[in-house]
């Protein structure tokens, strides 16, 4: 008798739980997953929907579309202009960023953020290249480094509705954070919740704690590594300012060679974090994608 009552109570509890936790309604909510597939240094092209296996919180999902380089980019450039960039480094950065902007397609849009101690939205999202190029030429390097706050503020500027574009954040920095309010872990959390893809270009000539930690000179930032992972993007290292132009070019090529997978989640509870895993079927390559997304209550 006791076991029967307990069983009924469990059933009632699970029914109640289901009623309280709404699931996605089919064909209403769409999730877009930006995916890179590389074979070594080369992007793998020619993949179709049936080459991808995607699970959302462990539940396989049916892909409604797979596209490659057909969706315009909405590029958010976030550039470090702290004092350590002064001189030759800034010159190379401007050249590299100019090259990237000039290589964008006509339908792509771009915005420019800079940060030293303060974070500035220098040019709002635009399809016009002239204001961006002008702003780049006028960059000045001075002050300390608020990477964390810059990333957070830029994430909050992502378009509320991506529409027909692919929003991507490209971050450049040459150092560690020295003046932000937010800690690195806060930025990682904000990145997880944003749904934005983040790529990182790091100039690793960092003299951070050179005297203090001895052999720690020129080490890449662990935080930036975590950031790229959380943002489903890639990270490139420049060992000298002269490498920047090539790396900015590589970053753009990578952005073009990414697939955009879309699906309407089914069979999963809506609210909260969703682990997304993407693997290949009948194809080979290394897959890089955001580890998941965060869905808030409807």
């Amino acid at each position, binding site marked *: 008798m006791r076991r029967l009552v307990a069983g009924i109570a469990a059933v009632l509890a699970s029914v109640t739980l289901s009623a309280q936790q709404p699931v996605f309604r089919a064909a209403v909510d769409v999730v877009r997953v930006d995916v890179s597939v590389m074979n070594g240094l080369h992007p793998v092209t020619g993949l179709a929907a049936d080459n991808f296996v995607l699970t959302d919180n462990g539940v396989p999902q049916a892909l409604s579309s797979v596209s490659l380089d057909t969706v315009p980019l909405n590029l958010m450039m976030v550039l470090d202009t702290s004092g350590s960039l002064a001189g030759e480094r800034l010159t190379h950065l401007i050249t590299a960023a100019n090259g990237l902007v000039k290589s964008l397609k006509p339908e792509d849009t771009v915005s420019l*953020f800079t940060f030293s*101690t*303060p*974070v*500035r*939205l220098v040019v*709002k999202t635009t399809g016009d290249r002239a204001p961006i190029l002008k702003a780049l030429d006028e960059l000045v390097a*001075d*002050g*300390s480094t*608020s990477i964390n*706050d810059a990333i*957070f*503020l830029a994430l*909050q*500027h992502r378009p*509320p509705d991506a529409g027909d574009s692919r929003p991507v954040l490209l971050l450049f920095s040459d150092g*560690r*954070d*020295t*003046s*932000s*309010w*937010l*800690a*690195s*872990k*806060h930025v990682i*959390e*904000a990145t997880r*919740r944003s749904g934005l893809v983040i790529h990182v270009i790091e100039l690793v000539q960092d003299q*951070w*704690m050179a005297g*203090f*930690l001895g052999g*720690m000179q020129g080490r890449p*930032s*662990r*935080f930036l590594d975590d950031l790229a992972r959380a943002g489903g993007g890639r990270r490139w290292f420049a060992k000298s300012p002269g490498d920047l132009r090539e790396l900015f070019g590589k970053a753009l090529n990578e952005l073009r060679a990414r697939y955009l997978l879309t699906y309407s989640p089914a069979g999963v509870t809506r609210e909260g974090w969703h682990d997304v895993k993407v693997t290949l079927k009948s194809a080979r390559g290394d897959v890089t994608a955001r580890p998941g997304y965060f869905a*808030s*209550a409807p």
Partner: protein
Amino acid sequence: MSAQSMRVAVAAAAVVASVSLQAQTPDVAAYRDAVNTYVKTGQPAKAVESLIRWDRARLDAVVKEIIASGDAALLESAAMLHLDIGIAIAGISTPASAAYFDLGEQLIAALVPANPDVRRQLSAERSAEIARIRSTWLGVAGSAFLSVHDTPRARTTVRKAREVAPKSPALMTILGSIDETESGPFNPDEVESLAAKSRVDRERTRLLLSAQRWYKDALEIEPDQPLATIRLGRTQFLLGDVQQASQLLERGRVIAKEPAHRYLAGMFLGALQQHQKDLPGARASYTAALAAAPLSQNAIVALAYVELLSGRPDQAQSLARGHLGSLDPDHAWWAFTGLIDLDGLFWLRQRVRK
């Protein structure tokens, strides 16, 4: 600071590094006029308009003549003009700011008569007054460097101030803030090996303990100093003593009168509450901080992040967009860090401005 004032101040920043040949005017008279304009209007940018094309060599020559005059009122007023310009441009060009402070430091040091006979005739009261003016001036200049995170210049300048006033609680508080600021980049999460983590953590702790000592020393002399109370609370939090931190920050919030102090109390209390997962409390504290310093990037970021954690991403985005979208390009962000010694600055200003 208005946008126009800032643009003029930016132009002044270029003066120090440039060499330009201009038609000569009686330079000392022009400089005196500029100082008088500053005293009458309280607007350093307006005062410096007439000196905008002067290079460093020209300013040096005039300052030497002003010093030679021995006119104490003029020395003090001129030093204040330099202090206010240096603060106005600190976040635009630290080297230019340092150059203005350097000249101002010469002027303020000249309040002590060079002639030993004259010096001996100063009353004890006047000697003490000069010492207070000099140490306060140097302390404010040091805190301006601190507000733009130039801790080496901040430390050098404040040490000079302490040679004049070793028992000043205001200077002790600034030195504590310098240590606290320098501890910031030492983040064990940024390094891989256990050995490196240990070293980084030790250095961070060393700096925070040093900051703690400075704040406690300041409070022994002046127990109701709001800034030292608030900063000690912050340091205790960073060292892991949340209970002590909470008591100090609550007390600091109650006794804070100046907006800069209310801002800091709100920010640090908010951080503590966020750590304790009290998001409504953190939101209220950060909102109070933002009310005290509406243009503070830190306050915007802190509040927006709490909104994100609270499941209000639209609010977070709205705050961030509102902040970045409305910023004047001349925005003097360093004035809103809570690090400039405003008590000292106001005291000095009210001495010279009519």
